[in-house]
């Protein structure tokens, strides 16, 4: 099952980090690092989470839906013979058919390929902006929480002030200042006013973790601050970070779609789901599929990501679940 593989890969990646040194030593001693018993023992924190995730049917189905969507946007432009940019007025406004599963637009371009290509753009921007949000939020939040005291207070009051910034108007303003819309300006515009919550949550996490006995124990054996932060605090926030990636992603994709819809999207002939929906809007009375299909795609991504986030939260932090 695809979801298993993905989570297993995630888990393996994390373990590789955690057990890197030991694996090195293990090989040095001539023992296979992938020793089945040891691997099992090492995996169990994440194995438990995977088990809980599997038990959540909505989460599993949406994870499959999410992966199917990814497969669609990656594979279709690759396998299709249709040229997404070739203008052919003879085939304009064709309703969905076998030759064109999603129909064609006003220039006779095949929408199936264009939706997949647009999805690539939307999802790529979505992930890039999400990681940018994570990067800024985690850095800001952990500095604030870790150092604490007056600096923490100052940083948090500053954040309170920033919270007043409305997300979309600020994104529009940012794009206006840049003057051009491309992948990177879009990422900046979507990040600039949406990392505040991540920063707050990270600060809270770090402060909670700081009170842990093993952090005190680390201090008691003389650990320096960077060891405490990077070895004991940040790795323990990984679960929250993974959940936040899937919580932020839909918001960012929706933001991108909105900006595209009001005409601040990437330039034609390239397209994202937002610009496709905007193109379709001009002819929605005669050819409703032009706007319905990209909108459904956006809805698909948002819903599946939300349910995955929900499932991950239950799986990674079982105590937080309400009974």
């Amino acid at each position, binding site marked *: 099952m695809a979801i298993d593989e993905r989570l297993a890969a995630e888990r393996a990646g994390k373990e590789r980090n*955690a057990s890197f040194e030991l694996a090195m030593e293990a090989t040095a*001693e001539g023992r296979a690092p992938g020793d089945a018993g040891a691997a099992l023992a090492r995996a169990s924190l994440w194995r438990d989470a995977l088990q809980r995730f599997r038990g959540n049917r909505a989460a599993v189905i949406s994870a499959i839906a999410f992966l199917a969507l990814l497969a669609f946007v990656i594979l279709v432009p690759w396998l299709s013979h249709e040229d997404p940019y070739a203008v052919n007025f003879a085939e304009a406004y064709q309703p969905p058919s076998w030759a064109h599963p999603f129909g064609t637009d006003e220039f006779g371009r095949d929408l199936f390929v264009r939706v997949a290509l647009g999805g690539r753009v939307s999802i790529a921007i979505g992930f890039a902006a999400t990681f940018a949000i994570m990067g800024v939020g985690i850095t800001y939040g952990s500095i604030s929480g870790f150092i604490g005291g007056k600096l923490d207070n100052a940083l948090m009051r500053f954040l309170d002030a920033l919270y007043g910034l409305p997300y979309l108007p600020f994104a529009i303003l940012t794009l206006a200042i840049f003057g051009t819309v491309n992948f990177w300006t879009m990422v900046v515009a979507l990040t600039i006013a949406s990392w505040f919550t991540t920063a707050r949550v990270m600060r809270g996490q770090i402060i909670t973790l700081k009170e842990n006995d093993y952090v*005190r124990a680390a201090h*008691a*054996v*003389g650990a*320096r601050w960077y*060891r405490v932060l990077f070895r004991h605090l940040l790795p323990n926030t990984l679960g929250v970070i993974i959940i936040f990636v899937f919580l932020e992603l839909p918001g960012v994709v929706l933001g991108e779609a909105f900006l595209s819809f009001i005409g601040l999207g990437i330039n034609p002939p390239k397209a994202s789901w937002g610009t496709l929906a905007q193109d379709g809007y001009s002819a929605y009375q005669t050819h409703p599929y032009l706007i319905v299909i990209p909108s459904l795609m956006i809805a698909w991504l948002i819903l599946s990501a939300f349910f995955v986030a929900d499932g991950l939260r239950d799986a990674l932090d079982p105590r937080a679940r309400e009974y």
Partner: protein
Amino acid sequence: MALLEVDDLRTYFKTRAGEVHAVDNVSFKLEERKTLGIVGESGCGKSVTALSIMGLVQTPGRVVSGSVRFNGRELTTLKRRQMEDIRGMEIGMIFQDPMTSLNPTLTIGTQLTETLSRHLDLSRKEARKRAVELLEEVHIPNASRRLDDYPHRYSGGMRQRVMIAMAISCNPKLLIADEPTTALDVTVQAGVLDLLEELREEHAMAMIMITHNMGVVAETADDIAVMYAGQIVEEATAQDLFDRPEHPYTEALLGALPKLDEPDARNGRLASIPGRPPDLLSPPNACRFAPRCKYAGSDDCTTVPPELREIRPGHWVRSAHPASERVREPVGVS
């Protein structure tokens, strides 16, 4: 010269309601290879004393005054980095709850070797070898295999053994054990205490054993300091303290121990000390035990704070009514 000399240590915590005098005028000496037991009820300042020695008191707490001389070095004025070099290297510490004292996301081996390589110049291979030896030393079976396990595969007792291994990994001269057996099953406690004693002997360490369990200090300590409301109220050799307790509080503590060999043991009520410890926000400028003391009467012990005095060689007490000086009967028998 003693290995550790604590003199007039005061650690206060700033709170919204005022300053909490968690440790107030604590002084003691600890010779090499000796064990000092610090006993007292919850909140009497035992742990804060230990954390103050280690320089681990966190804000809003602060060591306000006093000195901690370890091996001839003053610790309270050291820079943070110098103190970090001493922690784990020359002074080891064990905490109360072994279930939460190990990072759940790192293997036992990683946590042990990191402590080792933090202070000692060891290669990875050497550090790992030493880690296995340490686990063997604290009697973890199958040490070399268990090294790659995550903490959740260890039981509470084993985790405490790992914590002990970590604390002694760099051969410290002083080991501070802050209630090392409180969170453990009774059956495991004895084993951990035996292990501590064995290691103290082998590594020629001095030890501070913090506990509220009289039985624990009776077994392990050479000297015992009894703390009450942030102060040491009595200090003596273990033998002398148990045989001839002087302070009314110590007497009451010992009296509160259930005696299984008494005929009425199964039916009678357990003895307790009436009243509650004073609020450390504004400790009374008098004997802090006076409100609960059955010997406190009309004399000045409720208005003048008693000093710690040597009532006989090696036996210090902070009370106006030590047992050997008492003449009259208690005013109100409880």
